[in-house]
């Protein structure tokens, strides 16, 4: 979750989904990686990559990866962040409507609604089991 707070402090526009979002929403879940739905747009993607440049472990994925791929995992000194780019391209506006800001340390992090976070998690698990 700290990784998400650092991205937010760096000015990246994203919303948190997955276990971290559910945990911040008060659900009793084990928190794994930070799953971040990234707002589409070149400017934000560039800012995202810059934010990772100082904290990524190993080689930083290329700008093209962030622009073209559906999901880009980045290991950072604060934990792993799965950047859900395709989800952002498809669903940003809808997910943003249900999301709200929650504090992590003293940073406001945009977090998906519980309903959306559970829905995405269910869909992901179903795909994983197929």
């Amino acid at each position, binding site marked *: 979750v700290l990784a998400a*707070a650092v991205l937010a402090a760096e000015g990246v526009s994203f919303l948190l989904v997955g276990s971290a979002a559910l945990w911040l929403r008060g659900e009793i879940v084990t928190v794994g990686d930070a799953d971040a739905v990234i707002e589409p747009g070149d400017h934000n993607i560039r800012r995202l990559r810059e934010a990772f440049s*100082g904290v990524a472990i*190993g080689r930083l994925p290329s700008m093209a990866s962030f622009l073209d791929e559906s999901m880009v995992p980045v290991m950072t000194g604060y934990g792993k962040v799965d950047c859900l780019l395709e989800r952002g391209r498809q669903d940003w506006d809808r997910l943003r409507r249900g999301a709200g800001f929650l504090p992590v340390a003293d940073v406001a992090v945009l977090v998906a609604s519980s309903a959306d976070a559970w829905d995405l998690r269910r869909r992901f698990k179903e795909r994983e089991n197929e």
Partner: protein
Amino acid sequence: MSERTGLGIVEIAILEAVETSRYVKCANALARVEERIGLAPGYAYEVLVDLARPWSMPVNLVRGQGNFGSRGIDPAANFRYTEARIARAGRVALAAERGEIAPVPIGLINGNTYREGLRPPFRPGAIIDATREVIKRPDVPDRELAGIVGPPCFMTGCVVTGDFAALSAGRRTELRLQAKVSVNGQGKVVLENIAPNIGIDDVVRIIASRASARRWADDHPGLHHRIQLPLAGIQDETQANPFGRIVCTPALGTSPEQLRDLLLDVRGVYTAMPVTLRQPLAALIKHWVRANIHEDLPASLAALEQAQSGD
């Protein structure tokens, strides 16, 4: 994968290409590999380098001479400039492949996590002891066998924790690999035996970045305080320990013990590694012994043990 050693065809082809008592140019060895199995030198070289690097696997099958890279960002020199010869354990592996001696469980010992696989390495002596126990007592309880093998053992000597029972049962789990972190006599914090799945340069960079001021520090002092490491200096002394040695000087007003505790929470000082086995560990060893019991397994295990201790 060969049933007799657990090695793949590329590894076996490489061993045959460097099967000589003196060092041969890697370029020549790789040309022989290409001739034999059609694999381009650039691909085969990656495998050869793994087989030779002392930090990649417990049973090194090849000895390298020249620049085989470091655990940091330095890759091995081009194959035109390095040399290799077969190691004693490599000779044992080839003898087992050719049926000159009974099979040896090298694949089970080495695992494949050094190439981002999921099978972790184990201590060679532990797998050999467990195999001997099964030969002696085929019905040895699985739990006892898992106890003999013990936890996975990575060559960098990092601290390994996790659900070993799940791993022994053949379930997928995640290990936590952590550098050894201590306070030395000069009041500095020393990180040694860095996890194998992270570069030492990355660890240095991550720690240094956690110590530097952020442009948003004034806007978010709470977060800055949470992530900021009170560090006055950091030095990579890896030349003194090939498995990594980083020395951190605490900032004024911070005790080395405080800094040590903070460092233990930094990703990079610890890493996570997903692991699993094809079957429960005991079943793997028992099946392997049962399949090869008609051969002289004690002799081949002794040969492997001797090769390990004497190379």
